[in-house]
């Protein structure tokens, strides 16, 4: 008895006992859930099977980054949907980041008007649900832009209509290899030059206009190759045929609406994160930087932002994850993402709601975890190194 009470009195062993107990409770709960699912599926005469993934999907998808037709499998339809999710997430993240950082900095501007405009933008945008943003943008595009037959015509090569935006598509011809080669050379030169200039500055303090030189090299080298090899790129110009434009590159109203809505909505949150990050840097840092004569743009770039970055990145990761997950609202306007294909039409055609939902959840989980892992890696790289 005294042995048992001793175990209980010992802080260390008591902790272990409590943890074992909690673990048992969780395990019991899980096994109850699983057996419940199992029993109910048996009672309904259903089984769990993933064979449906390999039968032809039978439906068409309006935007595919890899080849797809309706004889391909449900699995491939799901992958096409996943790539569409990825596409809109990447577009959205780029837009949200650029817009958000700019707004966050403008919000702190000493210019009263600019600061207030950013303030109202942020307050309005982030207090309206994302679904309404999506429906609003989709509504604007399909209701205000004209029918394809009366499409807004920009120089006979670019067309805006309520079926989407059409731009010319570059087609490569023989001789393009030379342009690629020169581009690679230009990139290698830029990287080497950047490193050289940095080393030189560290040693002697001499500064080169690195950005402008690299910019010039990156543009001019491929351009020279392009002219030498006889301009091996032609443009496929979209043209109205029948009901719609054909040829060229096409951005559907759904993709555009979703990108705008996700980007603009998330930008408001990012702006606040950026503002918080900048304000978190001690004002002595700014004063010190100014006192050694740095221009205000340099103060921001060299002193404030590198320190603010540490505060910004963890919440920024959450925003990227939110944006990616919010893209599943695409189904409201008919953008065929993962939820609309595998979690929507495939589910309905095969009736395998448990299987499709588990797959869709797993995919979102792994996408989110990979974004998270990448941002954690980046965060570790930039975080304050303790000495």
């Amino acid at each position, binding site marked *: 008895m005294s042995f048992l009470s001793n175990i209980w009195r010992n802080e260390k062993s008591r902790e272990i006992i409590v943890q074992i107990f909690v673990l048992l409770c969780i395990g019991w709960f*899980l096994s109850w*859930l*699983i057996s*419940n*699912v199992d029993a*109910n*599926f048996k*009672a*309904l*005469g*259903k089984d769990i099977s993933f064979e449906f993934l390999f039968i032809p999907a*039978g*439906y*068409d*998808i*309006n935007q595919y980054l890899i080849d797809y037709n*309706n004889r391909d499998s449900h699995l491939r339809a799901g992958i096409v949907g996943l790539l569409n999710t990825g596409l809109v997430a990447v577009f959205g993240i780029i837009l949200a980041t650029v817009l958000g950082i700019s707004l966050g900095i403008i919000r702190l501007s000493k210019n009263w008007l600019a600061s207030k405009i950013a303030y109202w933008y942020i307050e309005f945008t982030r207090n309206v649900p994302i679904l309404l943003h999506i429906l609003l943008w989709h*509504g604007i595009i*399909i*209701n205000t832009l004209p*029918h394809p037959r009366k499409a807004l015509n920009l120089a006979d090569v670019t067309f805006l209509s*309520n*079926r989407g935006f059409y731009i010319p598509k570059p087609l490569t011809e023989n001789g393009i290899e030379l342009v690629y080669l020169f581009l690679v050379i230009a990139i290698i030169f830029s990287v080497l030059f950047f490193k050289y200039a940095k080393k030189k500055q560290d040693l002697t303090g001499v500064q080169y206009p690195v950005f402008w030189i690299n910019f010039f090299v990156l543009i001019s080298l491929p351009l020279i190759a392009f002219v030498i090899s006889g301009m091996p790129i032609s443009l496929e110009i979209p043209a109205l*045929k*029948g*009901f*719609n434009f*054909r040829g060229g590159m096409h951005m559907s*109203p*759904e993709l555009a609406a979703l990108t705008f809505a996700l980007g603009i909505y998330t930008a408001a949150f990012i702006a606040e994160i950026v503002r918080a990050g900048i304000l978190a840097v001690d004002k002595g840092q700014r004063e010190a930087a100014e006192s050694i004569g740095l221009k205000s743009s340099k103060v921001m770039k060299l002193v404030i932002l590198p320190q603010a970055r540490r505060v910004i990145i963890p919440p920024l990761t959450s925003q990227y994850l939110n944006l990616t997950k919010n893209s599943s609202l695409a*189904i*409201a306007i*008919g953008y*065929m993402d993962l939820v*609309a294909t595998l979690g*929507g*039409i495939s*589910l*309905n*055609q*095969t*009736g395998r*709601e*448990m299987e499709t*939902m*588990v797959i869709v*959840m*797993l995919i979102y*989980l792994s996408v989110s*975890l990979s974004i998270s892992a990448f941002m954690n890696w980046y965060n570790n790289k930039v975080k304050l190194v303790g000495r």
Partner: protein
Amino acid sequence: MKTKILLAAATAGVMFAGSVLASTLDDVRARGKLNCIINTGLAGFAAPDDKGKWTGFDVDFCRAVAAATLGDADKVNYTTATGKTRFTKLAAGEGEILSRNTTWTFSRDVDLSQTFVGVSYYDGQGFMVPKALGVKSAKGLDGASVCIQTGTTTELNLAEFFAGNGMKYNPVPIETNAEAQELYKAGRCDVYTTDASGLYATMSSFDNPADHMVLPEIVSKEPLGPVVRHGDDQWADIVAWTLKAMMAGEELGITSANVKSLAGKDNKNKEINRLLGKDPLQGISKLGLSADWAVNIIGQVGNYEEVFEKNLGMSTPLKIARGMNQLYRDGGLFYIPPIK
């Protein structure tokens, strides 16, 4: 990570937990109400009227089953479902009947463990276009943007029709009929496709129905009918024979107006007697129904013709002709087994 998934999956599974042990009829009687799964809104089939009461062809079928089992057609709880959620809701026990223009297909009947009890409406997929488009045939739709109500057999028919005719199209899948209509009206799509009955219903709700037309091609067979869960044969029989009783009512000339007087007297046609409980109908007690079940159905809801004409017929904005949806003797497809 693994635990999280199992937890999520299991939580999803709990939602499927329905009461599948007691008989469905006992459940309904104990509750005193029938739970019926209907469309979220499709004029003529299931739509709320100006007082917020559900009306329509599919709704009347729910009422008929309530009349047969509970003796009162008004004892129905309605649950709405989209094309995507309907089978899940039925499997989860949110309703005893799915009465929501659902197409009877092999895989839905067999693979999804559901029971289709009969056809209440023979339909087919069609195309609606604005007359201004100048298209006279579905074969002229190459390259068109097509709005589809998703979660139906429609996507597959569409894919097969266009591929079969060597045409291309741009699908725009939309979750509900209401949203699809908005996109069609805004010109996002050239064409709207769903079952022809749905097209007529949609067109009737437009400001200028005359500006639109349904193309002559019907590209699929869509036998629509009520669905019940697999495994309770008694309940499946009740629902199946409710539908047949409504059709038999039309065949035998029994209407909501004359059913009471026909039930009170000895008719020359003994089939009327058996249907209305005047003469014994062997086995009716096995269904768990009272002898006046058909009197309740026809008296409170009407026979098939009455229900069709009231909700879909020429006197309604939908103006749908009976077509295939009449008795075999009138040139339709309804051939009712003898009531013996």
